[in-house]
């Protein structure tokens, strides 16, 4: 039996309330034991002194683009980007071509992921057929094939009736419904946040209220149906307020926030002179929204940090602002941004950050992992909190280079990711 001993790191596992210098012993693909000064004869030893050892990070919101848009990203490149960014698992959004709205596509994604994936891939199925917002997809089949949730991400479920049925029906298969909250009639042809900046730039804006209206609706529908709704890429003060109130009433609602909404505002569109790497949906919001989002992360209203990794080709982005595709890549910057801007800035303690990136994502979608408890899959993210490096899109594993964070100097980076006991990626300059 092959064994691996991770020695002397600071082990942070919020699920077990651990934050101490300990060893982690891995046997084959699972965690065997976590404890002080473990001895394991014959085990390969990795000296992780000075580094942080966490349960593997899980991104609940990734666009792998395969099948259909392999020019933007593939399962192979997207999962390599995930591994290099400190993630050991990604949840793949279904807005592929064709849409992942049936078991056949789910199975083909999983097969490809098994053959070529650097990290675990958990497919998310569509809420409605073709994500057209009309008829429900076959949730039973999707669940059986391996889907962990349903979402029409990128396209809000406009009809309250359809959303209600989805929330109700999904409970039969223990599926979470992930919603992209946007009242479509308020954001027609919008390409940024509506406010003083869109006014100055002369760009069509989407008002923050358009998101909050749908979040309020979804919270009420989850309450009505007893279903479970997860709010994707939440971005406004009123939206987090709706989630906070819903949670206080015991409604089955959770939420995720992206690093770009936590660390940038719509001023970035102006400051960069209409750089299309500031264009995504939901758009970068106001400073007041951004601060409310940070507060919601701090007080637990936001459960997960997710990337909304949305790779695009240069051709999709190197055009007029209003013509450009929505979305930015995030897998290879998210963890470093959080370490620098949340932990480094003193806004969050490390165990809470690990919970947002690992424990909670696993819990929200009912995934294996999210802990280093004995018997858990040996998915591990190792962090180097002292490492300082500049974000250089040229060196991304992802095919996408569309990031507004290029050139940022960040302190705190992933050093290694282990998936099922095997090294999926390690920093080339890392000694172990």
């Amino acid at each position, binding site marked *: 039996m092959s064994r691996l001993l991770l020695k002397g790191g600071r082990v942070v596992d919020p699920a077990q309330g651990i934050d101490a210098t300990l060893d982690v012993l891995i046997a084959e693909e699972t965690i065997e034991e976590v404890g002080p000064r473990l001895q394991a004869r014959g085990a390969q030893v990795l000296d992780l002194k000075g580094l942080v050892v966490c349960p593997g990070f899980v991104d609940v919101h990734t666009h792998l683009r395969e099948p259909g848009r392999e020019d933007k990203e593939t399962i192979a490149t997207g999962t390599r980007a995930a591994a290099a960014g400190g993630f050991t698992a990604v949840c793949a959004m279904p807005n592929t071509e064709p849409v992942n709205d049936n078991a056949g596509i789910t199975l083909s994604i999983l097969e490809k992921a098994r053959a070529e994936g650097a990290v675990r891939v958990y497919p998310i199925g569509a809420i409605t057929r073709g994500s057209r917002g009309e008829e429900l997809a076959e949730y039973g089949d999707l669940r059986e094939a391996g889907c962990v949730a349903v979402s029409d991400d990128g396209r809000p479920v406009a009809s309250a009736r359809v959303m209600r049925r989805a929330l109700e029906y999904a409970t039969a298969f223990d599926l979470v419904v992930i919603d992209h909250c946007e009242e479509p009639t308020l954001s027609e042809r919008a390409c940024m946040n509506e406010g003083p900046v869109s006014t100055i730039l*002369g760009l069509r804006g989407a008002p923050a209220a358009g998101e909050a209206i749908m979040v309020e609706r979804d919270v009420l529908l989850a309450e009505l149906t007893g279903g479970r709704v997860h709010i994707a890429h939440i971005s406004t003060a009123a939206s987090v307020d709706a989630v906070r109130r819903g949670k206080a009433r015991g409604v089955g609602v959770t939420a995720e926030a992206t690093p770009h909404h936590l660390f940038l505002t719509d001023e970035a569109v102006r400051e960069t002179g*209409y750089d299309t790497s500031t264009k995504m949906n939901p758009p970068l919001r106001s400073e007041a929204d951004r601060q409310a989002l940070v507060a919601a992360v701090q007080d637990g209203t936001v459960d997960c940090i997710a990337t909304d990794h949305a790779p695009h080709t240069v051709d999709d982005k*190197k055009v007029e602002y209003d013509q450009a595709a929505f979305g930015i890549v995030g897998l290879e910057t998210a963890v470093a941004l959080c370490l620098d801007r949340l932990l480094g800035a003193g806004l969050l303690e490390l165990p809470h950050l690990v919970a947002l990136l690992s424990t909670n994502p696993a819990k929200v979608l009912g995934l294996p992992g999210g802990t280093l408890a004995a018997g858990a899959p040996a998915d591990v993210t190792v962090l180097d909190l002292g490492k300082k490096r500049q974000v250089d899109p040229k060196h991304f594993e992802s095919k996408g280079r569309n990031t507004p964070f290029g050139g940022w100097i960040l302190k705190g980076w992933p050093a290694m990711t282990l998936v099922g006991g095997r090294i999926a990626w390690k920093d080339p300059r890392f000694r172990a």
Partner: protein
Amino acid sequence: MTGFPHRHLLGIEPLEPSDIQTLLDTADRLKEILDRPIKKVPALRGKTVINLFYEASTRTRSSFEIAERVLSADSLSIAAATSSVTKGETLLDTAKNLEAMNPDMVIMRHSSSGAPHFLARHCRFSVVNAGDGAHEHPTQALLDALTLRQRKGRLKGLKVAIVGDILHSRVARSNLWLLSKMGAQVVLCGPPTLVPPGIEALAPVTSRIDEAVEGADAIMMLRLQMERMSGGFFPTTREYHVRFGLTEERVKRAKKDVLVLHPGPMNRGVEIASEVADGPYSVILDQVTNGVAVRMAVLYLLLGGSPEAAS
């Protein structure tokens, strides 16, 4: 001698008051050439200028073309409707192909806000924004300012009402920047559905036109941009005219020597009554004449002419 400190004219917002002053003074000096029997000077001989128009234009394009000819630049005009754009060529490819022909300047009108910034970022030539989406139309604001300055002798302290479809108007934005920078007192007016959010931070806003024009030195009417509207901003053009249109009755509330401006093309009987458009206070055709002078100044200064030498 110091040159003009900008290579591009992407908007009024990034300009200093002294830049605006220089542009207007230069336009004033160059204007005299247009009254000569032979309207041509060799100032830009050997310079190549391309007019790249992705949107329809009568005034702006022809006045740029005249300005180019008067200054002896070699110029050509490309209208998107007859170019490779109809074959699906991207803006960047079009620009890169033009760049390969080594022009000194490209003057562009485009329906996408920020398109001139995109061009300026990716190409070597100077870029002049001839109107981009709802963002800016800097030469329009300059010619409006030139017109006001000629008639009033100053900009500082003037009370100017900008009235109409502010939401879709690049003219309103450029004028707002310019007039504020030059010390004029601007009031914005329009139906609340056509006033963009946050603009009240830049100038007072009212939805009552009678209030807006009260005691005004100048009234700038904006065109109702039906083609950019996705519907429902106001019930009918009839009500628009009654509630927000500039009528003779309303002009009387302004100062006696009020000036009425309109960037054109006008919707007569909608935002402006014909009697007003053709009335004695209307300087709408002066604006057009000044448009040529202002564009001569822009070409001249951006292509390296010194402000002093223009006299």
